[in-house]
């Protein structure tokens, strides 16, 4: 696992709207605990959509689906345990930490904010995300970053096959290995991979790492809480992106689709 710092000290990626520290929020001292052993997901999300506090702690999530979805305030939310599908879905501005593993589609379509998974993530992590930073300290399964549209994703471990499929914008950083089909039909997303890539997807190619890419990668690693030195020196990463050969229909591309 990557040496990651405490999320409270992590800084956000350039261009990501700042999340105020809870102490600076109107009611920053107040911590509301929602225990899903006795409360419902509906009650949790209703509270988070009309928050009375700036900090929340969710206990006994027990793998429930749709935890902390549609949050659109700069809240700080800690989920103490494993979460099911679509945890932090469509997050817009909150800092959400899952102290456990997550199911399919964590932070799907995130707009802004920070979502951090202390454990592993299932399929389609960060799918279609449009902004913000998703940090997965463990590994992510298939289709990580599928159709991503501006989100930044940093994975401490490996990603499964077909990751960054049709990825349109944003950056995907993988500190481990990537499965087959990486970046298939990719558009303008930039992929940084430290380990080995399986067979690359259609129209995905390795590209040279220039100074601006090393600087960008260092910023992303720092934002995720990883010191970009030593084993995590940007020089150890390779960059992948679109060859842009499939941007227009052409008969000679028929075997590529």
């Amino acid at each position: 696992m990557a040496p990651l710092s405490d999320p409270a000290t992590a800084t956000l990626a350039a261009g990501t709207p700042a999340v105020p520290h809870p102490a600076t929020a109107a009611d920053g001292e107040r911590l509301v605990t929602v225990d899903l052993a006795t409360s419902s997901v509906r009650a949790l999300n209703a509270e988070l959509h009309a928050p009375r506090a700036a900090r929340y702690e969710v206990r006994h999530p027990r793998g429930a689906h749709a935890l902390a979805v549609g949050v659109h305030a700069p809240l700080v939310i800690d989920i103490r345990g494993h979460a099911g599908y679509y945890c932090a879905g469509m997050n817009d501005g909150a800092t959400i930490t899952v102290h456990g593993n997550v199911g399919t589609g964590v932070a799907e379509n995130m707009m802004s904010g920070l979502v951090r998974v202390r454990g592993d993530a299932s399929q389609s992590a960060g799918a279609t995300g449009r902004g913000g930073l998703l940090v997965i300290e463990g590994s992510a399964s298939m289709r990580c970053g599928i159709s991503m549209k501006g989100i930044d994703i940093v994975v401490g471990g490996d990603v499964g096959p077909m990751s960054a499929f049709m990825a349109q914008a944003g950056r995907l950083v993988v500190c481990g290995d990537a499965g087959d089909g990486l970046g298939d039909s990719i558009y303008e997303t930039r992929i940084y991979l430290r380990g080995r890539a399986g067979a690359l997807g259609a129209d995905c190619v390795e590209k040279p790492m220039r100074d601006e890419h090393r600087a960008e990668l260092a910023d992303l690693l720092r934002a995720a809480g990883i010191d970009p030195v030593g084993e995590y020196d940007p020089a150890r990463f390779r960059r992948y992106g679109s060859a842009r050969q499939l941007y227009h229909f052409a008969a000679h591309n028929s075997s590529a689709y």
Partner: protein
Amino acid sequence: MSGYPLEPAALGLRESATFDRATIAAIQRAAETGVYDIRGGGAKRRLPHFDDLLFLGASMSRYPLEGYRERCGTDVVLGDRHASRPLHLDIPVTIAGMSFGALSAQAKEALGRGASEVGTSTTTGDGGMTPEEREQSKYLVYQYLPSRYGMNPTDLRRADAIEVVLGQGAKPGGGGMLLGQKISERVAEMRTLPVGIDQRSACRHPDWTGPDDLAIKILELREITDWEKPIYVKVGATRTYYDVKLAVAADADVVVVDGMQGGTAATQDVFIEHVGIPTLAAIPQAVQALSELGLHRRVQLIVSGGIRTGADVAKAMALGADAVAIGTAALIALGDNHPRHAAEYARLGSAAGFYDDYQDGRDPAGITTQDPQLAARLDPVDGGRRIANYLRVLTMEAQAIARACGKAHLRNLEPEDLVAVTIEAAAMARVPLAGTDWVPGQTAGGWL
């Protein structure tokens, strides 16, 4: 064969039914270009359709309602199974999903204006929600598509309903296309794509893979929107019986079934013509699925694909639909394929009544384009007026038929009001062949 000169036949020439002129032209075009034909619209082939059904107006055994005097209701409530804010539409004819990108912003605004004037809904498409559309639409259904272009929680909360799109009748199993000519800066920005590329939308959703996952996805959408919005599930008509059952199992409030006559902005011709089933064949399957679950009318059914007249509306509803949606017909109402553009269609190698190159973005009517000069030809206010007029005519026509069948509300139309004039239509629609009690494929014993 009208429009063709008589000379070939008079000369003893005979056209092949297998290799007719359109087929010959298609082969020649393929040989010349090396790419398949991409076009807009729906299936053009002749299919069993609503035209093959007739109503049994009242006489001795049924009691009609007085036209123009006795009330025939038209309203419909959509999505009251789970949503705290179901849609209550004044008429059961809605506007189907068509994207900003495929259509100009003016056209989208006109659809919103027209629909709002008569108290019905319009629908976004594979390009996100535009402010023009939201502001001019009293009821706006926000599509949730595999591409998720422009998807955002703010627009989800601003929507009146959410339509999870699994497919459409013109291309069940296929993703959207928008060719580079139509990827203007605004379209590209809304979709987070480079300007001018040929856009290929995904055909599968990126974060769920089957009906069990869809149930969780719908739960998420409900949670994001605090259980306010009706959730529709739209499928292209293929294995409709099973698809509707699974959509209901996934907790849909409304199921939308789009037959193969339903249009598209850009898809391969071979896909449009050869994948999917006719609207007529899909409706009874959907109704059977809902009925077996005890949820017919509780989960509402919206049918689209080839709705043109009030008779089509009435027939779809008599077969069990709660509402219908129109797309191609709405574009025609806006001015698509109008003879006044004949000269320009000719310059594009087409003709009024034949134009289907929506993918090209050079629409003389200014509807299926992103060219500012062409788009400016469509006045959204006047376009809205035409849409409202057309929707009113559809509704009044359907009411005229319903009254003749003795129905005080459009929803009271029933299969027993219908017969078929072809065996194929009788089998598909599951109504008797006219003058008989024979429903092909059904067990013996009719109501005669």
